[in-house]
């Protein structure tokens, strides 16, 4: 797998504020990299530097081998970019706007019209194609932004919060579109919706205070969760007595948390020591105790838990 986007020691400061600090990574074809991080973590700033909008304080960005600073036009030709909030010229219609963006990308005549029509179909803009962009709903505006980003079939797609403000159906559509394009492209998207990472990303990177904190597949991230391989145990009928004490004695158990069904406790989440698998031990124990168990399941780990513990280190100790 050859890397299409290469980022070396990228750093950006605004006055005394360090927005992005020594970020280094590469993205290859077929990869969908998800940038995760709290607001103000430096996700957008990093994307703005990759796309050549902001000049880095230090460090380099290479896209398809072109340096964004010394060969900006060549690099920008390979990039499709959806900026945060999907800005577009609001007095234009999607049709005239996309024609303009296509012309700026060097397409002319029949080729231009064909490309715009195909893209319009891909993102389902046919119904509003001649309305002025300022009258469009948030979902349609986002699609217009997406359309201009993929119009020239770029090898690199940079999407800043592509599904922000969309309804669940629209989110699903956009994710399907991203997945469909993923094979031939290198895609970087930012989000703070964790389920999105699981849904579309092949790789996730958590950024906080301008630094890359962790970089791995969504599964690897989940493995960092306190709840990785935790066993959820729910009971049918009344709760047997002394369950927590009995479970504590099973080997590999680190902690036990009560699960609520409304007001009443109807089960426990058994957290494993160091993320080891404890399913067989727990089910063995349940069988021996003749507990009337309704559900036993293994938690893969919760991304938002990992997210919280990594981005707010002080509180992860508790």
């Amino acid at each position, binding site marked *: 797998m050859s890397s299409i986007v290469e980022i070396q020691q990228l750093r950006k400061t605004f006055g005394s504020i360090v927005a992005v600090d020594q970020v280094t990574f590469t993205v290859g074809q077929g990869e969908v990299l998800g940038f995760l991080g709290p607001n103000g973590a430096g996700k957008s700033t990093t994307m703005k530097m990759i796309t050549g909008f902001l000049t880095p304080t230090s460090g380099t960005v290479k896209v398809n081998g072109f340096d964004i600073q010394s060969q900006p036009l060549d690099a*920008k030709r390979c990039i499709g970019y959806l*900026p945060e909030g999907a*800005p577009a010229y609001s*007095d234009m219609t999607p049709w005239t706007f996309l024609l303009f963006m296509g012309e700026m990308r060097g397409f002319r005549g029949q080729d231009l019209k064909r490309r715009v029509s195909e893209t319009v179909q891909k993102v389902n803009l046919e119904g509003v194609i001649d309305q002025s962009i300022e009258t469009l709903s948030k979902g349609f505006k986002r699609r217009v932004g997406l359309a201009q980003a993929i119009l020239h079939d770029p090898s690199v797609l940079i999407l800043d919060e592509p599904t922000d403000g969309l309804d669940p159906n629209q989110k699903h559509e956009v994710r399907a579109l991203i997945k469909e394009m993923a094979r031939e492209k290198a895609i970087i998207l930012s989000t703070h919706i964790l389920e999105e990472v699981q849904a579309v990303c092949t790789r996730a990177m958590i950024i906080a205070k301008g630094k890359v904190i962790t970089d791995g597949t969504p599964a690897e991230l989940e493995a960092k969760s306190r709840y990785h391989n935790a066993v959820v145990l729910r009971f049918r009928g009344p709760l047997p007595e002394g369950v927590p004490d009995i479970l504590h004695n099973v080997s590999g158990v680190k902690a036990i948390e009560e699960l609520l069904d409304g007001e009443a406790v109807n089960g426990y989440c058994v957290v494993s020591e160091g993320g080891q698998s404890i399913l067989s031990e727990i089910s063995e124990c349940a069988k021996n105790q003749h507990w009337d168990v309704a559900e036993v399941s293994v938690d893969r780990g919760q991304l938002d838990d990992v997210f919280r513990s990594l981005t707010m280190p002080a509180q992860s100790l508790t």
Partner: protein
Amino acid sequence: MGRIGVIFKRELTGYFATPIAAVFIVIFLMLAGTFTFYLGNFFTRGQADLLPFFNFHPWLYLVLIPALAMRLWAEERRGGTIELLFTLPVTLWEAVVGKFLAAWCFTGIALALTFPMWVTVNLLGEPDNGVILAGYIGSFIMAGGFMAIGSCVSAITKNQVIAFVISVVVGLGFVLSGFPMVLEFFSGWTPQFFLELISSFSFLTHFNDISRGVIDFRDIVYFLSLIGFWLFATALILEWKKAE
């Protein structure tokens, strides 16, 4: 058509897609007419020329052109489209020039629509049409000067009202610097070369020559280099603070 052309076309059609074009042109023509006939005593002068018409152009442009120019970059910044524009394969220079040329060309269209003035004066007498042509050329190129100032100021702020006010003030400085009251203020206590320097920066000094039919190479160079300077400053400011 190059990328400057693509930007030029989008900007120019943008004026006509919104009420801006209609409002600007109508008001420009109304004011130009009112000034010429009432304040300029077009008829009672009894001369077949367009001097009273051209004399008011600096003042018209002073107010009207900042109104056009204020949105050039402030609007891109406010709408976030500046990020779109500068992540396209386009150079800063192409974008600055493309947008400026479109706005300048638009004022040219408004100016061209004053042709009934020229028809009138030709019906009433036998004017020197060469002088009138020179006046039109001078007026157009001066409009470019005002527009370039406005473009630069518009790049500084995303607030269009601020952009408008500052452009008017800077423009006023360039118009007034040739005025006796400004020059008198400086005369006596500043050296002569300084006075001449201030006066040589005046739009009025250069425009008056042209509008009397004297197309001096230096006047044209003055306006063109002024445009060049302010566009260069626009590009610098955008590069420096495009993300703010």
